[in-house]
């Protein structure tokens, strides 16, 4: 059926090429790498299996990105949000992954220590962004350039354009050969953080926070539980608006969350709005920043009218107040 000819060399090269790609680029290859590392008692270089789909699942979020060390004194502009996200994600990288930053910082005469400084770091990161803005006008391409280097980023950008797709961070990362995984995760974290810094507030800025994010004594269950969002005291029927543009990922009702909306803003950022009296958008619908999406209420497991607002970065709940300039006074009553 398949007569063997003098094509052994070509067949061998192509087979090796395919095995090399599978070894580096597929979860099946990662399984082989992990198995061989286990067999030879060495350390596997394979990423977590689930990270082969979105680049972030299964990878640990670096501690510095949990929140800025310094409180924000005023609302951030888009450029400042990007700089803050970049600074925090950079702090989570190891020394090797910081090399592209170090190279650009050296060109601009910015000491690396300054980039990592909690106060001056965001300002220095903004200078880096400004230096790259002409070559990489889109934020996602610019972050790729900062985290993986200008040359790989330009190459990835040209490949994405050749494929006819939008230069999102995910599509840019897909074009890069093995070796850029850690830097790509850093860029994704920076993008998620900067998006979080730029979010609006779902109700009036003056709404009181009646129960903050974190461990609390649950008012209904009577035990200590993690409160994965913030409770905002608003009367039933208050307009709830989208904190950024996005797509409605969930619009449902259950006994715990009541009438709940989940918005996917892309870039690894999701927000949820629980205990509403009325939902005004449907699953799959695209919403704009500030658009009326629901009316608050007292549905589900709730002891009074309020809005439970939740922010998730890379699918992990984060304290939304850490990304706000003005933190409202927290009431002693956390009974909502």
């Amino acid at each position, binding site marked *: 059926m398949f007569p063997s000819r003098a094509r052994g*060399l070509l067949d061998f090269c192509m087979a*090796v090429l395919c095995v090399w790609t599978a070894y580096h680029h597929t979860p099946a290859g990662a399984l082989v790498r992990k198995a061989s590392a286990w067999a030879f008692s060495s350390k596997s270089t394979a990423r977590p299996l689930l990270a082969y789909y979105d680049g972030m699942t299964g990878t640990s979020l670096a501690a510095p990105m949990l929140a800025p060390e310094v409180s924000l004194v005023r609302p951030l502009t888009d450029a400042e949000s990007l700089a803050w996200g970049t600074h925090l994600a950079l702090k989570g990288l190891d020394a090797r992954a910081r090399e592209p930053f170090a190279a650009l910082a050296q060109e601009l005469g910015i000491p690396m220590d300054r980039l990592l400084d909690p106060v001056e770091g965001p300002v220095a990161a903004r200078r880096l962004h400004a230096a790259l803005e002409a070559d990489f006008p889109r934020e996602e391409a610019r972050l790729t350039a900062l985290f993986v280097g200008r040359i*790989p980023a330009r190459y990835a950008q040209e490949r994405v354009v050749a494929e006819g797709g939008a230069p999102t961070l995910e599509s840019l990362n897909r074009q890069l*050969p093995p070796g850029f995984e850690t830097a790509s995760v850093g860029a994704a974290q920076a993008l998620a953080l900067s998006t979080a810094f730029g979010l609006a507030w779902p109700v009036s800025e003056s709404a009181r926070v009646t129960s903050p994010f974190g461990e609390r004594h649950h008012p209904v269950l009577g035990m200590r539980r993690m409160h994965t969002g913030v409770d905002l005291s608003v009367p039933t029927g208050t307009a709830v608006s989208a904190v950024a543009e996005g797509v409605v*990922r969930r619009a449902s009702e259950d006994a715990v969350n009541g009438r709940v909306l989940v918005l996917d803003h892309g870039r690894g950022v999701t927000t949820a709005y629980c205990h509403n009296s009325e939902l005004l958008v449907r699953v799959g619908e695209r919403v704009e920043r500030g658009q009326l999406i629901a009316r608050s209420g007292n549905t589900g497991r709730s002891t009074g009218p309020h809005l439970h607002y939740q922010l998730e970065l890379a699918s992990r709940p984060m304290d939304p107040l850490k990304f706000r300039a003005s933190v409202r006074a927290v009431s002693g009553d956390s009974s909502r």
Partner: protein
Amino acid sequence: MPPRPPPAGPSTSTGFVTDVSRLLGAFRWAFMPLGLLALVAVGVHAAADTLDDRLVAVVDRVDAAFDGLVGRYDVTAPMVEWVSLELRTRIARILALTWELAADLVLALPALGYREATAAAVKPAESWRAALEGQEAKPSWRALWQRCLRQPTPMRWLRPLATAAVVVAGACTVAKLMQGTVYLSWRELMGDQVADWGARGLAVGALVGVLATLGWRAVLRNLQHADAACAQERGRRAFTRGLLGCAVVVPLALAAVLDATPLVSFLR
């Protein structure tokens, strides 16, 4: 007049390549099945990678329906909190991984059964060996095509077509990786222009080479496998054979064709 010595240079180099080819040819039984397996696995992953966000949406809808159901009763209401957003995303990724590995089993594993007929096997003088050992000659493209037309079954049609789709997606991924690696490693040595054209040329070469050496073999091997599996069954059972596997691979094949096959991008 003394006889002219034969030209040494070109024939030596041709001889060297032929010798290397012949030497490597002796190991085709090992590297060809592995290459086919890897190519299909790469293509399946390229397709699965485009489906994971859709799976998140499906998991969200299922979870919303589940929450609505268990939330009706006080006893089951706490079950609403079982699945957080983080867990839902993780479930979707796990589903994508499971789907991909299942498709690997269905499409890539048969590649390990790939065998090439040796020259000895087709020699008439050696035909007694095949007869004694009960070996059956593998059917040709033509015989397989005719059986597909006369005795069509989902497995005979869908498995090879799905393999073709993921193989093209796999070849694109290999070419993309080749282009990126070559460009980024050659750029400093040879300059931007040379590295760019070299990388593009090698990417197109890899794309064509992979399809010409491994691609069609992967499709043929799956066709042979599907044909043999269907031939073991009769009537209705032959029709229903492998339906589950087809259901697993067809959506991935569609995703491969629609979202993971940027063939033209290598020429732009």
